[in-house]
Each structure stands twice: as structure tokens, then as C-alpha cells.
């Protein structure tokens, strides 16, 4: 029999505070997805191998399937839903969209969070740094080429203080 008693949990997610009661065996991933309905963070393996559930915990990337929810008590969590504002995509999201870095999209939120953590630390990474930063995020669709290009383009755009290229049709005239 698994424990059924619930414990209080305070979570700060994407700038909002949630007061919850959860069983001790619940992972952060389960709470984000099932209790808070933040389904942008995906489960690919539940064993920490695929990176689809990568979120920031106090600013550092973790696989949410390996974090017990109660261990995140009182801490800051950022998920993919926390990056875009109502008006504007984050430059990383914009670059992923415009450069074809998204196919099935299941790994995308994890990749974007890992890349976000990298750019916080190193605003002008080279290709090797990008590949290292996303090495824990498996992608079956893209072969990573366009993902790496998108992260580099977003870094460039953010560094230049503006977001990535204007419209897709302008890009198309190449």
C-alpha cells in the first residue's frame, strides 16, 4: 500500500503561489500536470532519461519527474507556460517556431527550458555550449540541427536587444 496521507505544499510557479495538499510520493511533474493543469511540461519516461519534463527549480534546470513535489516546497518553479507574455513569445519560442525546430513538439518545452537556463548563464554560447546544454533533452524528430540553430539565433536576437526576425514570409524570400 502506498501512503495516502496528504501533506501541505506551497509552490511558487511562474510567479503565482499555490497552496496544495499532496501525497508524499507525488512528483513535481505530477503536481504540475495534474493539480495545476500546467500540461506544457510533458512526461516522456518518468525516469529522468528524456528531459521532456525539464523545468527550472530556483533557476536551475531539473527533470520534474525525479523531484518529489514536497522537496519543491517554498521554492520557485518556472515552466514553459511562464516564458511567454500574453502579447509576445519569448525570443527562444519565436526562434523555435520560425526556424522549424518544432515537429511533434513533445520535447520542445523541455528543450526551451534547458536553453533558457543556458542563456541566463551564458548569453552568447557557441554551438558546442548549446549542444552540451540540451544534451539531456532527447528529441526523436528534428535531429537537433534546427534546435541548435534556433537557440543560437535567439541568443543573438536577445543579445542584440531585439527579438528574432519579423515575419515568416520575409524569411521566406531567401
Amino acid at each position, binding site marked *: 500500500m502506498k501512503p495516502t496521507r496528504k501533506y501541505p505544499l506551497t509552490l511558487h510557479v511562474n510567479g503565482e503561489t499555490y497552496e496544495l495538499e499532496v501525497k508524499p510520493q507525488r512528483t513535481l511533474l505530477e503536481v504540475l500536470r495534474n493539480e495545476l493543469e500546467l500540461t506544457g511540461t510533458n512526461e516522456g519516461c518518468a525516469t529522468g532519461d528524456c528531459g521532456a519534463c525539464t523545468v527550472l527549480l530556483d533557476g536551475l534546470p531539473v527533470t520534474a519527474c525525479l523531484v518529489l513535489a514536497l522537496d519543491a516546497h517554498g521554492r520557485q518553479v518556472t515552466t514553459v507556460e511562464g516564458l511567454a507574455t500574453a502579447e509576445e513569445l519569448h525570443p527562444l519560442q519565436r526562434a523555435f517556431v520560425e526556424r522549424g525546430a518544432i515537429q511533434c513538439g513533445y520535447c520542445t518545452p523541455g528543450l526551451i527550458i534547458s536553453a533558457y537556463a543556458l542563456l541566463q548563464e551564458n548569453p552568447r554560447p557557441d554551438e558546442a555550449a548549446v*549542444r552540451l546544454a540540451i544534451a539531456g533533452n532527447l528529441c526523436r524528430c528534428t535531429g537537433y540541427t534546427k534546435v541548435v540553430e534556433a537557440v543560437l539565433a535567439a541568443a543573438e536576437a536577445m543579445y542584440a536587444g531585439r527579438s528574432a526576425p519579423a515575419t515568416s514570409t520575409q524569411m521566406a524570400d531567401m
Partner: protein
Amino acid sequence: MCAFSYIGKRIPKPDAVEKATGRVIYGHDLKVPRMLHAKVLRSPLPHAHILHVDTSRAERLPGVKAVITADDFPPRRFGFAKDRTPLTGDKVRRVGDEVAAVAAVDEETAEEALELIRVEYEPLPAVFDPEEALKPDAPLIHEERGSNLFRHQEYVHGNPDRALDEADVVVEDVFELGYMQPTPLETCFCLAAFDPSGRLTVWSTTQIPFLLQRDLAEALGIPGHHIRIIQTAIGGGFGRGLDMYSFEPICVWLARKAGRPVRLAFTRQEEFIAAECRQPMRIWSRAGAMKDGRLWVRDVKVLLDNGAYVSWGTVTTLVFMETVGSLYRVPHARMVSDSVYTNNPITGAVRGFGNPQSTFVVETQMDRLAEAIGMDPLEFRLRNANRPFEETPQGIKVTSCGLKECLEAVAERIGWKHRHERRPQEGPVRRGIGIAATMNVGGGARIYRSDGCGAIVKVDDFGQVTVMTGATEIGQGSDVIVAQIVAEELGIPPETILIVNNDTALTPWDVGVHASRTTFIAGNAALIAAREVKRQILETAEELLEAAAEDLELRDGFVVVRGSPERRVPFDKVVRARHFRQGGEVIVGHGWYDPPNEMVGADGKGNISAAYGFGAQAIEVEVDLETGKVKPLRVISAHDVGRAINPMYVEGQIEGGVVMGLGYALLEELQVREGRVLNPTLLDYRLLTALDAPQIESVIIETDDPEGPFGAKGVGEMGTNPTAAAVANAIYDAVGVRITQLPITPERVLRAVESRK
């Protein structure tokens, strides 16, 4: 300069923004009121009689709402060979066979209930090797068949026996190819719900919504017209969803018994055990050539392990056969294949569908033949390359063909001519370059009675264009391709078009997303529907603009009189003018496209596709002689795609295909011992990471196919096909050893290097 407004543009997929922001809804995200969670009890034994199943304790567990065993199902079978039942009642034939299932209020309760089910087994002798399975005293997997041989096929053209005597050189190898898993990031998913009138809705990760509708009807005895399949956003397919699996009728039957919606999602471990994988094959192959550089003969025997049940995967030999008989001009060819039952995991469809296997064989031996006659491997390939508009002895009617251009492009970009000049000849780390080509169906593949797809284009009173297409979007980008094709025809931006592609109640029939067929087939269907809509629009605009239809064009959302741009009328106004009048009508066009291809005959001959894609890869690798590790450094991949409707996603297919091919070549292998999967995790079954994947340069060759929509052909599988062969050829170039087993692990490289000493 491009003559098109939207064809050939790098336009993002319509679902890209919702995927980037986490707002997209995958199956795993779905919740509906009163939804239950299902778990399946699987056999721990590879072959055993079931003596008794006791579910009474599970049924009494609080929170359990339904428990089912084989007895709950009507006596019906399903699958390609009708050799399966959703739950098995008499005996289990593989580790993982579905024996009982539970629906409960949450997953934990369902799991606990499984532990309370008692199954008494009587173990039977099992067989795990297809050669052993063919021996007369082997245990029978399906007794009623009387043999473990499922399918024997022979193909021949020319006179291979004589040709093997005539050939100046003959090479011979045995190839041993392992299990590969499709491994989409989202595991299998099903949510089933009945409405009060008995109609069933299934939300699914399937790649074949209309065949799933049929398969569920057949397996369960529910009328097909009472079944509606809705595809959620799908987290990858790669062939995984081409068959109905047991879990789907199980989920439906639990929903029926419980009278509540039931959700069933695989764990990753279950995915590795129960999702169908690429066929392991043992292949004996001989190939011969003439000293003057003519490829002369191929003679191939294939032994294919079906596992415990047969899926669509058993016809991978048809695709295998095309490469043997028609990649390059080969006057004599024979292929004999046996598909065999064993007590191993079930094999099925995985991207490439037999072609990565056959291309590995054929392209390895092309290199060996070139060496044997002292010719450059590139020159040997060019000499024998297929040409446009030729019919092969197999009955394959090649239309557009850029094989020669692909080979030349990759050779030039990788520096083929000077490849031996700058590389280290000493020390533990050596470098080499290998080349391989591929031919793949690019205009559908008729393996079912219909290879068709339908499309409906409608325009509403506000000018909104909606396309309802049978095409299934599994990430590859069919939604944007269909939008661009319709946009081009109607002269409106593709971003404004709404695509409905996920509901059998709304969309017209399609056979499924497989065989790199969607751009060609669904694209043509959408084009036909768009042309009909355009005809209707022009008919009404003729009146409004007082001009003849031939003087009108659709441009940027207007109907414009050619040569007088000031005489124009906005698109939506035309639509309303047609609608809001006595005897008016709405604007809607229907398109159906079933390509001019044919089923392969019993003799293995026939034009299976209406067009063929061609491609070539050049790969540079580093081989460490001390560790045996092979590191891919650079991949150039050129593909004749007819026309790239959207180059960004053509590249995406190529790049993703290459990395999947590298996985097949170097890393990915389901370790199966006595029917058990030993590595059912993403830690132990390795996919390439961003650090392992090399730089990939895609080269798009356009040949404007006469039958393709705007000249386009399929590309989905092509990137995966030649990769293992190109890697093996590069390893030979680097260190002089031939590896004929996949994956090419460091251990296999070291053994080969040592045995050469």
C-alpha cells in the same frame, strides 16, 4: 526568383506556437469528467498455457470499477493475419501478452489491482530464433497454422543463377540486423468513451484513424459507423501507430464495462515491451558485377522474425525487395524471404519499413563490388544509377529521378575526390568517408486496396478557408504543406487557412500516415478540392467584375482582372455574393486522390508507387582503434523530393531521418534474451543526444515530378534509409574492416579490427 507565392517558402507549422508555449493538448493531457485509468496485466512468460485467471480480489479492491479477461470479449480476432485477440485466454505467446485489464479511479489503484490478479501458467517450450522456429520439431506458436512459417515470398527477374556464373566478380556476406524501437517521445495513448446511445469516441495517438475505426469494429463487433476516432496532437509516430494494438480494444471494452470514460497510457517501459519494433533480419546476400563497371546481379535471402503475432510489418519484405530489384540498374535479381513466428516481441512498422535493412545490404555490397573491380565507389554508382522515366525489370516505373544529381552533390560537398589526402594514417583515431544512396516510394505505396486520401475545402461567409483533410499530422508538418498547396491555388496566405485533420466524423478517408505518402497523396487531394473551389469563385467573380474567367486571377485575397489591377473584388465578397441570393449556394470543393499505382503481384512485380524519391548520403566518421568507438563527424544528405513545398520541413525530415538512421547504425538495439526485453528504458536503450548528433547538411534536389502536387514527392523516410550503409562504408574507408551487423557497437568494431590482425 520563384514563380510561386507560397510554394517553396519556409512557413512555420500552424501548431508551432501552441507547441512552443506548452498550450497544445496531447492525449496524455486529456481529462474528461468521471474518467477512469486503465492498466494491463501482461504475461511474464514467453510461451505458456493459461490454466486459470482469478480476478476476484482485484474486483473487490475499493476504487476498481471494471476488470476484464479474455472471457469478456466476443470470440473475434484482429491483426494483419487475424492471429490475435485483445486479451489472451488460452495461452500466452510472448512476454508482455495481455492477460487481464483493470479500470480504476486512479493509476495507483489500477496498479494495485493488477497485483491482486492471480494467473496460473503452465510453461511451454519456447523458440526465439527464426531458423530454429522453422525446424520440424519446433514448438508451434499458433498450433492451428501447423507451422511457424507465416509467409514465403520469391521474386526473380533475369537469370540470377547464370548471371552469378557470368559475373567477373561476386561478393557474398551474411548480415545480422537487430531490433529497433520507433520510440516517439509520447508513449501510446487511448481514451475511450461511449455516449448514452452506444456510440463510441476514441481519442488516440494512431497514425491510421480510418483503419483503426475498421479494426475496432472488427475486433469488438461494434458497428463501424458508431465509432469516431479523434486524434489528439501526437507526440511522434515513426510507424508505431500503423497497427491497432491490443491496448486499444482493451481500453474500449473497459469503458463499456465500467460505463465511464477510460484512459490508457503506456509507461515508457510498456512502450519498449509492447510497441512494435523494426524486424530483426538475417540476410544472405550475393552480388556480382562486370569488370567494365556494370552491376550484374543480386541474390538475396531474408529471414524475418515476426515475433509472436503478425502486423503490417510483415510486408516490409515488399519494400526490401524494391531496393534489391530496382535501386541502380541491375539486370538479374532474386529475393527469397521467409517471415517467421517466434516467441519474441511483435515487430511492425518503423520509418523506412524494410528499406534501412535492404539499403544496408545493397549499398555495403555496392562498395565491395567497386573495390573488387578496382573502380571508385562513386563512379560505380553513377555508372549504374537509375535514370528518369525508365521502367525497371520489376515493373517499377521511375518518373522524375535525381539519383545522379544527389550522388554528385554529396560527393562534391564532402570532398570525395580528395578524401584520402589529409587524413591521419597513424595513431589510434582514423577518419573515413562513406557514401550510400536510397530509393524510396515517393508517390504513395499501394499495400491496401485504396491508397487514397480525401480533402474538403470550404469557404465561409467571412472568407475563412477551412481544409478538412484525411492526412494525419504526427509532427512532420503535413498541416502546413496542405495549407501551402491550397493557399497557392487560392491566392491567400497559408497562415489564414484553418486545417481540420483529426476527426473521422469530419474528415474524408485516408489510409494513414506511412510510406512518405502524405505530401504527395493528401497534397494532390487538397489541390483537387482547391481547384474546384477556385472554379466556383471565378464563376461568381465573372459576374461581379464583368470579365471572363480566363482573364481573372486570385491574388493576395482578391479576384483581380489580369492587366487591370484596379478592377478587383475581395475574396469574401465574392463568397457572399454567391451565397446570399435566390438559388445561391455555399462554396465547397471536394477532392479525392488515389494514385495511379498498383499492388505488387504474387510474383513481386508491379508499380507500387506513382513516383519514387531518390537520395544519397556521404558521411565522415572517426574510428578509435583502441576503444572501437565510431563518431559521426559530418553528414551530407541530398534528396530528390520533386519539389520542396516547404524546404524548412523537408530539411527537418532529412535531419531527423539521418539522426534516426545513425541510431540504427550505431546505438539503438532492443536487447532481447529469451523473449525478454532487457533494456526497456531510455537510459539503456540509447537514442542520439545533441552531443552525439553531428552536423547535417541537407541538399534538396528538385526534379518537378509530373504527378506530384506542384511537382512534389515524398521525403519522410528517405533520410533514414542509407545512413547505416554510409556509416559502414565510412568505417571501412577509415580502418579497413567490414561490419555486417547492426548496430555497429564499439565491441563489434574492436572484434573486427582484431580478427583482421
